């Protein structure tokens, strides 16, 4: 059994072949910066950030659609805080407020229930973004809305799932030597969720938690697997992640949602990488299926390439100049889990 001190020493003194690992969870990106993890690795080990922040991968057409809905009479668009500042093709929701867009920020989608009950004359549309982790929460909202017979709650969905997007990245040639698999996602899906990818593409996956030691242990796991040319999924977050899926969450997702294509900012439409409402629940949908493409606000923005791990935030000509958290040009600079935002505020 190796201890933390030995792991730290190993990672700092590693002199083997150059290795690049991609984290595909926004919380991992944030934690890597928060704990200063890159400082603790040898120059031979690189970490790059993939498309793991749900806000960052939301295409501008989706924001445009939210703005249009928020301007309709008797309609409110309800979001998490980050979404308000994400740029659409012309403006963000928060900028559109001055032009009559009606928005409300909540901490939980469940807050919609009270809003809808108290204001039956208003349609409440939730900007339902998120990955496998967030999607089950929306099923709880729909369940309650059905029970209470509320017809004034709708979702504009931009729900994403990881495996097809990772496969797309690999096929685009952005293949790293291994993936830090998202711990929160795996808590819902089980670590076996990535088995198929790991086997078919012979790439190591390490499921990681979000503490400094958990990240180091998972990175160590990836280095060791790479050295042995071993593929497969290793779970370094057993306190929260099991091999198999959380059955309750999976059942609820299957009830309301079905697999569909999804548009990723900077990456475009990827078949099978999203979740949308099933036919029988389409009455809750606010037009999500009409969103099929992505347009850039600022042509210089490298958000797409950065999300694919092909470029670092510092490579973007706009980074830190035209694009800052105060006036973001791309979504990676908006969300507190975006890689540009994290590099801007925490980079050494």
């Amino acid at each position, binding site marked *: 059994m190796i201890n933390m001190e030995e792991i*730290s020493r190993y990672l700092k003194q590693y002199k083997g072949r150059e290795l690049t690992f991609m984290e595909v969870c*926004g*919380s991992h990106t944030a934690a890597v*910066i*928060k*704990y*200063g*993890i*890159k*400082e*603790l690795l040898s120059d031979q080990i690189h970490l790059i950030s993939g498309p793991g922040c*749900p*806000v960052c991968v939301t295409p501008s057409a989706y924001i445009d659609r939210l703005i249009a809905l928020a301007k309709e009479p008797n309609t409110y668009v309800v979001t*998490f*805080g*980050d979404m308000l*500042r994400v740029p659409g093709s012309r403006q963000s929701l928060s900028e559109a407020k001055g032009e009559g867009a009606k928005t409300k*920020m909540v*901490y939980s989608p469940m807050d919609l229930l009270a809003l809808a009950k108290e204001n039956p004359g208003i349609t409440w549309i939730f900007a339902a*973004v*998120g*990955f496998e*982790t*967030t999607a089950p929460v929306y099923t709880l909202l729909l369940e309650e809305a059905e029970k209470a017979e509320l017809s004034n709650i709708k979702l504009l969905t931009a729900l994403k799932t990881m495996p097809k997007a990772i496969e797309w990245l690999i096929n685009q040639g952005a293949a790293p030597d291994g993936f830090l698999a998202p711990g*929160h996602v795996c808590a819902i899906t089980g670590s076996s969720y990535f088995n198929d990818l790991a086997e078919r593409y012979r790439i190591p996956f390490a499921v990681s938690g979000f503490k*400094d*030691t958990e990240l*180091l242990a998972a990175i160590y796991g990836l280095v060791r697997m790479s050295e042995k040319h071993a593929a497969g999924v290793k779970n370094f977050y057993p306190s929260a992640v099991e091999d198999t899926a959380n059955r309750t969450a999976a059942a609820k997702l299957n009830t309301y949602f079905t697999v569909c294509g999804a548009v990723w900012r900077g990456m475009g439409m990827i078949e099978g990488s999203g979740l949308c409402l099933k036919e029988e629940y389409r009455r809750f949908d606010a037009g999500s299926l009409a969103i099929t493409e992505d347009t850039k606000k600022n042509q210089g923005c490298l958000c797409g390439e950065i999300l694919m791990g092909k470029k670092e935030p510092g490579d973007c000509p706009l980074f830190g100049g035209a694009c800052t*958290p*105060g006036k973001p040009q791309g979504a990676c600079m908006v969300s*507190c*889990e975006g890689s540009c*935002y994290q590099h*801007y*505020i*925490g*980079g*050494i």
Partner: protein
Amino acid sequence: MERITMEHGGGGRATGELIESVFADAFSNEILSAMEDAAVVEGSAHIAVTTDSFVVTPPEFPGGDIGRLCVCGTVNDLLMRGAVPKYLTCGFILEEGAELAMLRRIVRSMAETAREAKVQIIAGDTKVINGNGGLSINTTGVGFVPEGVSIHASNSRAGDAILISGNIGDHHAAVLSSRMEMKNTIKSDNAPLNEIVERLCESGVEVHVLRDVTRGGLATVLKELAISAGLRFEIEEEKLPVDPQVRDFCGLLGLDPLYMGNEGKLVAVVAGKDAERAKKIMQNAAYGARAERIGSVFAAKEDFDRGKLVLHTKIGGKRNLDVLQGEGLPRIC
């Protein structure tokens, strides 16, 4: 239940009764009781003046209320220039429908805190507006700066020690918990910091900068001080005092205690040689029990080093800290 009505703001009988029964009673002192249009008070050569408006919701929260807060906030701002706080004025903006019993509790709490902070409330005003039963308070504070005291934001020097007077993030976490109806025992730290400042200044410790750590949190305050002095500030994550419950609360919501507001904490930048003594003094003063030295000030080696704030993480990494961006919202996944 008695509530505030528009008549209470009309300037007639109801206004008179409100002032008499709620404010005059609680704040009574010779200057205020004269009910003049302006208070005339004794002065000093160097006068510190500050003003602040308080709009917190809910107005009563675990560990405090807007009344205590509006005294502490303004008194602490005066103290941060090394001034001895003397007088406060207060302006109440009451919303129609505000509960009179709540107003009484808040006013009483204000009076009590003013006594604790050794300030007199010498002038006031009340207005009533349409609304939903809330209230806002503005306080202006006046204090006297003793001869020879020079404490200001750009006064940090290379070799100085950085100290914090206690746990960070408590107020923010308490208000947020209350707003989100989360059950925990986190309490606001709202408190007047007179004793810490008085004792530090009397002790002969070379105090260069004092700043209260309010909105924006510790990181924002230190970054501003680093920029203002053109020096490099370094702090140790391991030394940062954070209540375990606040830490867990932040973890749950994706918040960072470094960016969360307090209402009864200060940062002191003192000469390095006085660091240990300053820490002991703070620890023995009211509201300073968990005071800690958290870092040091360095000369900027290169231009890009100026105004840098670096955090040494527990595990040995490094991270740049900037001022708070946006509003510090809970994360979504």
